[in-house]
């Protein structure tokens, strides 16, 4: 199949969810209406699910849960999840952490903040890690670090690329220094994956900040961003407190990061599957 022909297969379904089996509802489905934070229009949650959590009026990208992303990106039925048994624990005996974990698990229906596994995109194999907004806003602790590290190790073993969706407020305070160490741990695995000549693509989504920005989110060969995502090391509130000034509009958003040379491209959610397929196709033999 010529590359151009191969791309054609993604032109067919108008809605990338078409033919992907049942639609996985977002957590917002419990509400009757949703107000777009950008254009203030009233939207129906069900419509948002079909529209990939994108506002039909202003293209604002709502947060998307990990399962819906997998659904959007992977070939139907191709996703095989790994390391599902890893469970977070309150190792430091941090006050309130047990309760917080339970609430996060209930809200997200995930054990921790990242879902990892393998899939194919247009029949090309890749490893995936996807961070979950409903689990403490993708906070990175020991389980997330371990799962992402294992994803890269699996990719090295199999000679496959890694595609990651970053979404995180940063390292998980409740796990203290153990969570900070996950930054070094994942970085080491990425270095090995890189040295093996394999491709790593990371898509930065809203928000990508703190220890995740300062590690695996910024270490990819190709770094993409969703429109309007907050991407930075320090959060805007912390910066404002430090410099005692308010920040200019658009500061740290995807478009700002593109302008400053830190992301390769901004890709609308609707085009991500095709875009990723194109990248995998390009790097076949050299990682795919």
């Amino acid at each position, binding site marked *: 199949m010529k590359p151009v022909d191969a791309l054609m297969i993604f032109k067919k379904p108008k809605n990338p969810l078409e033919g992907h089996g049942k639609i996985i509802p977002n957590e917002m489905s419990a509400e009757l209406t949703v107000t777009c934070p950008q254009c203030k229009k009233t939207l129906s949650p069900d419509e948002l699910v079909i529209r990939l959590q994108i506002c039909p009026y202003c293209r604002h990208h709502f947060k998307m849960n990990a399962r819906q992303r997998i659904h959007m990106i992977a070939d139907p039925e191709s996703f095989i999840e790994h390391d599902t048994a890893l469970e977070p624990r309150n190792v430091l005996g941090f006050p309130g952490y047990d309760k917080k974990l339970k609430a996060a698990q209930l809200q997200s229906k995930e054990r921790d903040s990242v879902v990892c596994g393998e899939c194919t995109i247009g029949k090309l194999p890749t490893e995936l890690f996807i961070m979950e907004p409903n689990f403490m806003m993708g906070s990175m602790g020991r389980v997330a670090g371990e799962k992402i590290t294992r994803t890269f190790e699996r990719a090295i073993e199999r000679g496959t690329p890694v595609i990651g969706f970053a979404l995180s407020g940063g390292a998980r305070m409740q796990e203290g220094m153990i969570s900070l160490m996950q930054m070094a741990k994942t970085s080491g695995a990425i270095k090995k994956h890189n040295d093996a000549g394999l491709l790593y693509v990371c898509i930065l989504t809203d928000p990508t900040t703190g220890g995740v*920005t300062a590690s695996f989110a910024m270490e990819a060969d190709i770094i993409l961003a969703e429109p309007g995502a907050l991407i*930075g090391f320090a959060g805007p509130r912390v910066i404002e407190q430090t410099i005692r000034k308010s920040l200019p509009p658009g500061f740290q958003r995807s478009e700002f990061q593109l302008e*400053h040379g830190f992301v390769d491209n901004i890709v609308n959610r609707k085009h991500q599957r095709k875009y990723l397929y194109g990248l995998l196709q390009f790097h076949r033999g050299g990682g795919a």
Partner: protein
Amino acid sequence: MKAYERVAAARANNRFTALDLIGRVFTHFMEMRGDRRFGDDKAIVAGIAYLNMTPVTVIGIEKGHDVKERSMRNFGSAHPEGYRKALRQMKLAEKFKRPVVCFVDTSGAYCGIGAEERGQGQAIAENLVEMSGLKTPIISIIIGEGGSGGALALSVANEVWMLENSIYSVISPEGCASILWKDSSKAREASECLKLTAEDLSELGIIEKIIPEEPSELINNIKTELTKAIKKYSAMPLEELTEHRYKRFRNIGEDLIR
């Protein structure tokens, strides 16, 4: 000593700084400046020096002493160019087969407009990746404050040590308290929760060594331990050396995974 007393000791105004230690532990320190990309960040000092007779690359986060110097050093909060300067020196160390010694003392990487515009996160991330594979021994010592990612960016080492009264933490006690209890004055309680003292972190397997601080012994302690460690790691084949560093971080907290 309680955790918060360690925090206070680590931050004390009259505490020695990186340059104080560098001048006493090493000889013939020659500072090398600039990241060759944007500028020279004075929060980070880097250069070459002798440990006894062995040439080493030395990198330190410098807070400064008096008000004027502290402000010139940005109170030891580095910008991306500081981390890039450090990386440049590490690459030279690799080229000339010199071990790297880092002295870490920062409340954290700087949070500001310029720092974000120039990629604070990217600069730290790059150091983590590059240090993980650097083909020369690295020893990092937390000498005062080890503030989160800004400290980790110089601490992907074969061994990480802490001075007795230093702290190493994922977030400042004030930041933690303000998130947890919406009250930054509860930093004392937060300090206990975070397990940020040398004893706690040694117990958790995050650091290898605690260096006692008695004034008469401190310099000698650092010198003796560094000499031993550098001898040990310089004898390792390079492949084994980088694998040792990778495993060091790979295995942290592994026993906690069932």
